Every structure is written in C-alpha cells, then in structure tokens.
C-alpha cells in the first residue's frame, strides 16, 4: 500500500512556566537573531520532557525527532503515558499548531476529532449545530445535507434535534458531535480519546463505526487512547511514545507489551519499610507482580496467568508461620483471601508465591493486602498502596472467557440449555 502521510524529524518545543515580563526579552533576542540570519538561540536549550524531574531549562521538548510513515487505509494507534507527547503530535497533525522543526507531508485531507463538541454553540438547535460543526470540520453545506438524516439517526437524538444544545445532557452532546465527525469523509481521520465518554451502549456503537470507517471504507485513521482494549481491537499497528521520543512502531500486540513493561518500577514492585519493632519475628520486604515466566508486569492482560511474590525476612526461628494474601476491590469489598500452609522456618530471606492460573479477573485495579502470622497470632499486616492492575488488553478470548461483560470475574460458568 502507498504511503499517505510521512513525518520527518518532528520536534516541538514549549516554554515552561508563566508567560510574563521575561518573554518580551526572549522574543527580542529571537527576532534579532532572525534578522542577522542566525538560528533561534533558544532552540539549543531545552530538556527532555520528563514530568517528574525538575527542569534545568526554561524550555522543554514535548516531541523530539519523531519519524514515521502511515500507509493508506491503515489504522494506527498512538500510545504512551501522560506527557509522552501524543496530544502534541495530534495537534501538529491536525494543523492546530506547527512543529518547531521537521516536516509532515501528506497526500490526503486530514480532519481531526479531538474532544468533540467544542464547536457547538449552546443557543443553536441540534440541527443547526450539525451544520455548524460539520462546516468547522471542513464539510460543505451540500455534503452535510446529504448525510443529515444518517447523522441524526446515528446520534440517537431525533427527539431533541430542534432543541437548543444548551438543554442537552453532556452525553447527548457527545453523541451528536461524534455522529457529525463519524460521517466526515476526510482521507485521514485523527481521533483523540473520544470514546472515553458516552455510555457503554454508545461506546460500543462508536467503536463499531470506527471499525467500519477503517476496515470498510479503507480510510486512514490515527487513533490516540489510553484504553489499551480499544487500541487492541481497532489498530493493526501502533506507535509508542515516551517522554516526547519515539520508542517503537510495530504490531499493536507487541507495542502494547512494551508499553505495559514501561512503568514496571511503579506498578509491579512494591517495597515495604522495615518495621521499627526490633523484636518482630518476621516481616515482608517486597512484593512483586510477575507472569509465569518471572517477567515483571505492571498490568496483566485479561486471562494471562500471573503470580504475586512476597519477599519476607525471618529474624528468629519460627514455627507455624503463615503468609496470607488478600484481594479486595477498590472500595475494600473483600474478593478473596489465600493462606499458605504453615511452615517452620529458620532465620533468612524467603519468598512466598501465589499463582493465579484458573480465575480470570476482569479489567480494573484491585487492592492487595498482606498478612504474616504465627498460627492465629498476627505478626504483620500491610494493606496500604499495594495494587494489582488487570489491563483492558485481552490475552486470550475464547468460550471460557468473556471480557466485555460486567463483574469481577470473566470466566464463564459451565452452561447448558436443554428441553425439559
């Protein structure tokens, strides 16, 4: 397939801090350098975009040396942590701002769908807003007229279409806005996190429409999202950004794996403080979350077996030592508790392993609680800030696992339908 869009050495620099009286002197310096035909003096400075560290310069590179190509008809996902530069890249692609350096070349019309509904005027009716929003997105009046009925039907707002938009619920606005954009016919469609809104039914409809757009009509779509599940189901290939830099582009499944491994430091390893009590017989030092091969996992794809390893230290010889692992939902409703058999241990470092390979948890975050006890006597109990995250990425989906249902578990019951 032919290349429809090509990004070469895209970089974008932003100024940190408040725009104030200092700005004018920088502007004058820049202008003076420009007149003498010299390079912008502030382009050389600027540090990598890492949110958490303190900046040593007033300028920051939100994007640095991004290169990629998009083939015609491809649905390309763009993922990365907050601040990785995804939205900046989309802003450049949709011509909202220009890159500091680099060029984007395209053979098609680009239209963007970034946080829908911004073009609505509250005083105008739904129908009038369809025309206004469509025109803002680059459609002509005639184009919109031919699609008006379809748009209204897709949005599911027939009853309100002649009511001012200010009377709409936020969900209805999103529906209407998405409907307008979905019937746009640009060569390249750019979408940023739109599906995070609307109810489950509409999200499903929206994702279905997106699939039609990309697969059916052969249009090119660039799609930014934090929702790995949606990325996985829509995109053939995905780009991963990290701190404004390009990490990799490849098959979605592979790139998502790289992404999940990225924040391992934060979400897969939990270290515990050494208790102040000197007489304590045993205490936990660390908890790690790994897959069956021992790789650290910050998020577990639904259906992938996982292991929790509790590292603990025994200070004095101890009998009947039991390690317990509790799991609750985020509202502290208990889900289950597992206890190891009792052990008689000599001083040293130990690991207790808890393997989950039969129950499939649904996506979401769960709290983990650790208990160490001697018989029925509790020695240590840790229940703060330890989480396991089940990602929306699906590891396997077959008859035994249904991932789009509600509830804590995704395993299906053994079912049978017969005539009495």
């Amino acid at each position, binding site marked *: 397939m032919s290349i429809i869009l090509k990004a070469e050495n895209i970089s974008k620099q932003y100024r940190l801090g408040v725009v104030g009286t200092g700005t004018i002197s920088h502007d004058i310096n820049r202008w003076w350098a420009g007149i003498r035909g010299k390079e912008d003096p502030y382009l050389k400075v600027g540090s990598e975009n890492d949110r958490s560290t303190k900046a040593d310069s007033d300028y920051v590179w939100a994007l640095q040396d991004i290169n990629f190509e998009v083939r015609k008809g491809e649905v390309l996902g763009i993922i990365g942590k907050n601040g990785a530069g995804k939205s900046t890249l989309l802003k450049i692609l949709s011509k909202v701002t220009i890159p500091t350096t680099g060029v984007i070349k395209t053979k098609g019309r680009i239209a963007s769908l*970034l946080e829908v509904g911004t073009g609505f005027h509250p005083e105008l009716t739904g129908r009038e807003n369809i025309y206004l929003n469509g025109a803002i997105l680059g459609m002509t009046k005639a184009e919109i007229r031919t699609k008006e009925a379809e748009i209204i039907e897709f949005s599911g707002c027939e009853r309100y279409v002649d009511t001012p938009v200010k009377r709409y619920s936020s969900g209805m606005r999103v529906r209407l806005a998405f409907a307008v954009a979905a019937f746009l016919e640009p060569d390249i469609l750019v979408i940023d996190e739109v599906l995070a809104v609307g109810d489950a039914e509409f999200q499903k409809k929206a994702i279905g429409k997106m699939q039609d757009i990309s697969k059916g009509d052969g249009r090119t779509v660039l799609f930014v999202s934090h929702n790995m599940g949606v990325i996985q189901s829509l995109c053939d290939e995905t780009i991963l950004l990290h701190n404004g830099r390009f990490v990799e582009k490849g098959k979605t499944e592979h790139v998502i794996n790289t992404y999940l491994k990225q924040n391992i430091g934060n979400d897969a390893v939990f270290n515990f403080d050494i208790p102040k009590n000197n007489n304590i017989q045993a205490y936990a030092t660390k908890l790690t979350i790994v897959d069956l091969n021992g790789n650290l996992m910050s998020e577990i794809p639904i259906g992938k077996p996982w292991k929790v390893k509790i590292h603990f230290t025994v200070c004095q010889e101890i009998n009947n030592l039991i390690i317990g692992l509790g799991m609750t939902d985020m509202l502290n409703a208990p889900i289950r508790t597992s206890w190891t058999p009792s052990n008689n241990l000599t001083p040293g470092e130990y690991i207790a392993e808890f393997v989950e390979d039969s129950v499939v948890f649904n996506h979401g975050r769960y709290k983990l609680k650790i208990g160490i006890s001697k018989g029925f006597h509790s020695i240590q109990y840790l229940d703060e800030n330890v989480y396991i995250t089940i990602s929306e990425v699906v590891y396997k989906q077959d008859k035994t696992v249904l991932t789009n249902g509600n509830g804590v578990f995704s395993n299906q019951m053994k079912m049978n339908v017969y005539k009495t």
Partner: protein
Amino acid sequence: MSKLEDDDWLYTISSKRKLIDFNFKEIWNYRDLLVLFVKRDVVTVYKQTILGPLWYLIQPLFTALTFTLIFNKVANIETGTVPPFLFNLAGVSIWNYFNTCLTSTSDTFTTNSAIFGKVYFPRVIVPLSIIISNLLKFGIQLFIFIAFYVFYKFSGAAINLDSTVIFFPVLVILMGMMGLGLGMIISSLVTKYRDLKFLVSFGVQLLMYVSAVMYPLALIKEEMPKVSWIVEYNPLAYIIETARYMLLGTGTFSWFGIIYTVIVTVIVFLLGIIIFNRTEKTFIDTV
C-alpha cells in the same frame, strides 16, 4: 516507495512560514463556514431577549440623542444647517461599525482558543465573519438613519444628498478594512501580551473623541489649531467627515484626506494579515 511519488504531496506542515500566506482557495472552500458563522453571530446575540434585534436600533439612537443633548445643547457645538441629531446619528452609526469591528475582532484568538485548539480551519474566517455580521447590523442602522433623514427632509431641514453618495459603500469598506486590520494586529499581539486588551477597551473610547464623530472637522481646526493635527492625521476622521459630506451635504471634502486614508488603511490591512498569519500557526502554544 518510488521517487516519483515523493512529489505528489497534497500539502506539508512545517515550521517554515511565508510572509504573506493568504490562501484564497482555501477560504473559498470554507465559504459555507463563513456563512454559518455570520448567521450564528446575528441570530444568537439577542436570543432570550424581549426586544431582540431592536437593540441594534436602540443603541445608536440613544447615543446620538445623548450626544445631541450634551455637545449641541449644553456645549453649543454648531452643526450648521443640519439638525444636530441627524448629524450625530450619521457619525455614531459609522463610528459604531468601526468600533464593533475592532473590538470584536481584537479578541479573536483568546475567545476562540478552545475551538482553535481542536480543529483547523482558516482562522481568518472568524474575523471575516465578524466584519460581515457587523456590516448587516450597520445596514439595519442605516435604515433608521434613512427614516430620520426622510422625516427631517419633509420638516424642511436644509439637508442634501451629495452626488458623491454613490461612493458611500467605498467608505464603508474602508472603515471595515481599518477595523479588520487593526483588530487582526491587536488579536495577534493579545495572545502573548494581555496588556493590549486593556488598551483597546479605553483606547477606542479616546479614539472616538479625535475622530470627528460629534463635531465637524472644520470646527476643531478653528477652535484648537494647536492640537487639531491629532484629528487631521487620523484617517478615521476623514472617513466620518466625508461620509457626512456625502449623506448630509455638510462639512468638507478633501482629496488629500481620501488618498491619505486609503493609503493608511491598505497598510494597516496588509500589516494585519501578515501579523495574523504569523500568529495563527503557533498562538495555541502561548495563548
């Protein structure tokens, strides 16, 4: 990919900028948006008001009335044979067109930053739509002027349309270009330096006093010869003075004034486009 295909790019997005990048074809492609914006501006302003579009008329009428009471009755400014109210109504209507054009285009970027930050369309559509919707409002106000004109004419006032009145639309276009040009310059600078916002709100008021709105140009030359240069170098004063000459047959007509005004307007307008073009590409980073 072959080398040949490389040249087929529809367009490129890069940091390089041309001095004047006025893409008429693109604006033409977005003409429906322009129409919809104008419609939106006109229709929505007075929604949920009782008097509705009547507000377009009330405002100039009362301003002209106030001016007549203060400047002509109290301060005794002479307007010759022309009824003072009609004299003021002409000045106020034209001045208002410039005033609304300037003030509403001058915050184009700041008020539209939400939508400009999400989608691309030629940004100049927004100030253009403001100029056009204000032109419609000006048209409505012109009707009320004509009504009063006819009324005074039949009451026997010595007012005459000058034959040059066929060039009146040119004056309106000049006024619009002036408002648009200045508005585009200010809107671009405001994205970085908010100081200008405060300057505009009271600067426009001050400007009115030196634009010969409520007095004839000849009067200031006669009464305050030392400071009259401020008014004489103000192209807006010539537009208003000439407009009154055309509509009411009062005041002066000077070719020098007209040519001077045209030159200044064209310069301001071009400067506005250049600065606006430079700003529209990156303003979202600084706004």
